[in-house]
């Protein structure tokens, strides 16, 4: 829902059509979307979730919020009354619809909606936003393309093949436990159009014939394989459960998983590691090393009781390039309820001490539960680091998912290599004896240019 519609006004550089009257033909929904929504956002976590305009409790009454939540998975099919515009106005490209499940996690997406709806279309009509398919549960999709209130109902399209309609925006903004999640909730377009075809067919003949005008759901209108399988490196991201605590981890060798100390804090503790790709497997493991609380590197290493079969092992990076496209793959937000989420961004900073990278910062959306997960270079797929934390402003309590910190893999690689070759933990023990400048960086303080001078 948006704000008061503004008067018809000029589009960005081109005149807008005057608003055309339309009639409501159908209200459409996808029962599978609503079922997955109830599973992921309902239950005991229901009261933690807020969507779109309902984020400001003081602005929306409980009834209105309830109405909005009920309408979240519903869409409207309208028939626009013919206008006087010249014939060419009535033509325009038919949109192609991507089949459900055809777009893999991590695939780039383009969202096109109008922030604030009809309030200011001459400025905001068809504003674009880019991201990736972060996660999916049947027709319920999540993207990290950032959308604003008013873009509900806007289309989300693939980059390849160009312009295939994947989904419509169901809820542009999500808050969980008052943390902005930075993900947009989508409903896949294909099942909605199937519901429309079925429903129109059951209505009076004059309307039923409209079903033939609905865009076809095509593998690919261009005969291309719709999309290659998603990036192979997402498979290395695993879920780590240690008692009641869970987080993410990354498989770095067939029997070795790296995670965060705050996920698996105690050496010799038994942990459960869940792999979801290429198939769902659960393997027990044991924490063979965890850094001390005093170490700035929040790291733990788990040795598995069985090999990880068919999981491609990530290649560790040797260099870091600020500005490069990166992806985080973690179990934040949904944890065990569905596979890992992929969020995209850039490597926003590489913090060095004595010319050695000791901290990586990215603009990906990182949420609670993603700790311990892998940070990859999007194009090369090499493993850049281990996600350790995002940012909270203690004064305002606000959390910034898009500012987060990772431990460079170059810090861990020598110790990992030594342990894999000899079983010696000596390299890991070095992580407990980092220099003061490294500690200062991870305490988010400015490295001292020089030792403070005594005033005496």
């Amino acid at each position, binding site marked *: *829902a*948006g704000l*008061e*519609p503004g*008067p018809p*006004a*000029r589009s960005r550089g*081109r*005149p*807008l059509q*005057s*608003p055309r009257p*339309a009639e*409501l*033909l*159908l*209200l*459409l*929904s996808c029962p599978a979307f609503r079922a997955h929504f109830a599973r992921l956002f309902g239950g005991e976590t229901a009261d933690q979730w807020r969507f779109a305009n309902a984020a400001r409790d003081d602005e929306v009454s409980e009834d209105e919020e*309830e*109405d909005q939540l*009920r*309408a*979240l998975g*519903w869409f*409207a099919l*309208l*028939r626009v009354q013919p206008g006087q515009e*010249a014939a*060419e*106005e009535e*033509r*325009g*490209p*038919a*949109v192609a619809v991507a089949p459900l499940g055809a777009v893999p996690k991590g695939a780039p997406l*383009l969202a*096109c909606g109008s922030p*604030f*709806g*009809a309030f200011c279309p*001459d400025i905001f009509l*068809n504003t*674009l936003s*880019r991201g990736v398919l972060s996660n999916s549960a049947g027709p319920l999709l999540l993207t990290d393309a950032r959308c604003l209130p*008013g873009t*509900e*109902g806007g*289309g989300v*399209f693939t*980059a390849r093949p*160009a312009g295939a309609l994947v989904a419509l925006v169901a809820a542009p903004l999500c808050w969980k436990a008052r943390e902005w999640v930075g993900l947009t909730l989508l409903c896949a*377009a294909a099942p909605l*159009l199937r*519901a*429309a075809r*079925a*429903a129109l067919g059951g209505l009076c003949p004059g309307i039923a014939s409209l079903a033939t005008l*609905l*865009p076809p759901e095509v593998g690919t209108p261009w005969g291309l394989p719709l999309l290659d399988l998603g990036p192979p490196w997402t498979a290395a991201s695993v879920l780590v459960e240690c008692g009641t605590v869970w987080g993410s981890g990354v498989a770095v060798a067939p029997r070795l998983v790296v995670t965060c100390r705050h996920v698996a804090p105690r050496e010799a503790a038994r942990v459960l590691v869940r792999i979801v790709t290429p198939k769902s497997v659960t393997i027990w493991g044991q924490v063979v090393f965890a850094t001390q609380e005093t170490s700035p590197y929040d790291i733990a290493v788990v040795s598995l009781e069985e090999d990880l079969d068919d999981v491609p092992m990530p290649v560790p990076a040797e260099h870091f390039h600020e500005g490069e496209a990166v992806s985080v793959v973690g179990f934040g937000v949904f944890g065990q309820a569905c596979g890992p989420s992929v969020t995209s961004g850039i490597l926003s900073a590489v913090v060095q001490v004595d010319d050695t990278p000791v901290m990586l910062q990215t603009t990906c959306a990182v949420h609670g539960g993603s700790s311990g997960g892998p940070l990859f270079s999007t194009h090369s797929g090499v493993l850049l680091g281990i996600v350790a934390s995002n940012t909270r402003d203690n004064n305002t309590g606000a959390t910034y998912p898009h500012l987060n910190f990772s431990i460079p893999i170059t810090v861990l690689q020598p110790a990992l290599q030594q342990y894999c070759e000899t079983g010696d933990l000596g390299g890991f023990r070095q992580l407990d004896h980092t220099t003061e400048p490294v500690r200062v960086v991870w305490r988010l303080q400015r490295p001292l240019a020089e030792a403070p001078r005594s005033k005496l």
Partner: protein
Amino acid sequence: MGRQWGSSMRAAEQVGCVVSASRADQPEAGSWSCSGVILSRSPGLVLCHGGIVAPFLRAGSGALTTAGAAFLPGDSCSDDLRLHVQWAPTAASPAGRSERALPGLCTPHC
């Protein structure tokens, strides 16, 4: 946006639109609006978010919670529902231009 996005952007912008809903004869009662996708231009078919017509449901929003329901007919909403669709033309056209400043929106310096 990189080259890979050019034709996606054009395709997205050519089917994008905004939809507003209001009560007949009660424009002061406020209105709701959202974005939408043009599925067909002649005759015009648009898919938009259902949240903007939920306030007009004769049976209230409870009708949206019927288990397994995949659609509701158009007459589920009251007759005073007025819908309008607006989109950018696929070619220049002499549509109305408005010079009036827009109320309520401002761009504060960061």
